[in-house]
């Protein structure tokens, strides 16, 4: 198991999990909001659709292409 934080929420996930799994387990499955303010969550799961853009340790990433790491600080995008 390892521990990471999404907008300050502590999440414990199995080692080898992708960030999409941690998002699904969190209190809010959205990764970001669209231009018009709609919640957007992981969709294709394979790095194509760009829906799961999220900020990981200060850098833009795709949740579906990002393995969880111990202590990772994740922020949803406005």
């Amino acid at each position: 198991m390892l521990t990471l934080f999404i907008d300050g929420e502590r999440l414990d996930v199995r080692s080898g999990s992708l960030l999409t799994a941690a998002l699904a387990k969190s209190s809010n499955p959205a990764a970001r909001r669209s231009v018009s303010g709609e919640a957007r969550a992981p969709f294709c799961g394979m790095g194509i659709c760009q829906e799961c853009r999220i900020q990981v340790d200060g850098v833009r990433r795709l949740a579906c292409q990002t393995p969880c790491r111990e202590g990772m600080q994740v922020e949803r995008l406005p």
Partner: protein
Amino acid sequence: MKPVADVLVVGAGIIGASCAAALAARGCRVRVLDAGLPGASGAGMGHLVVMDDDPAELTLSARSLALWRELVPQLPAAADYRNCGTLWLARDAAELDLIEAKRQRLDAQGVANQPLNAAATAAAEPALTALAGSLEVPGDGLLYAPVVAAWLLQRSPLIEFQRARVSTVEGTRVRLDDGRWLTADAVVLAAGLQAATLCPDLPLVPKKGHLLITDRYPEQVRHQLVEIGYGASAHASSGASVAFNVQPRLTGQLLIGSSRQFERPDRDVEPAVVGQLLRRALDFLPGLAHTSLIRGWTGQRAASPDGLPLIGAHPDQPGLWLAVGHEGLGVTTAPATAEAIAAGIFGEQPGFHVEPFAPDRFMNAPRSQAC
């Protein structure tokens, strides 16, 4: 021309939609036919820019920008219009000479502009690397052309849109691919590159372009940024060419262009060209290294041999009007193109010099064959 004319417009991109709107404003009943094929309006940046490489192009683009500015207060919010201006960038003394020449041409045309020295350029756009100077053209802007084209068609009850593929254009009539013929008082062919398949004597060739778009970020750039060497870089007569051209969208995204390739009629995004675009962009905006791209795509510009559009009567098919070959400047020049086409159909002189765009400069030999 009778007072109320029926006109068929082939193509619902920004040129066809603008022609339809101009004709409807004069009381014509207009039917717009579009096959739904990919076109340049949907692929391009939507940069509204006065271009001065050629005197005729300068007149056309300056007139058209004036017409766009009249339309701006009515545009819907989804048009994403922004009066961002263009900042033409010079890296060295030779390029400062190009800035000075551009300033003189714009001044002669009465187009507002402001030369900025190195410090003023850095102050205007802090994300840029150190440059020799720039020229600000504050009247330029940007918009999202597909929304504007659809809006233009919906504004008038005199315009009817029909999703249909045209297979033949012949004077004042067109045949749809289901075999039906439609006839009108005039036909306007504004189908971009597709026009060359409907009218094989049109000298149009595709020039492929790539564009990239970033994720949304807090504002990094305020003007549309274009290298002053754009003409030399982007209009090489053969091979792939790339010029720095970055546009700040209202969403906080940056559009990154631009490239031109001959004889690449496909739609593939080519990694080598993407690499060239990004290297060029990083030369001017080093901070882009920390910016995420979310998509890339391509489009085909419809280019004529002399780089100017064909606007006017078909030389040997009475009633057929051509509005094609705008290459990368169709969004900018759509309202003035429409003004010229509407004036021509009504037998009037438009408010600017249209002779350089007359189609008969390429198609002067009378032909017996239909389009």
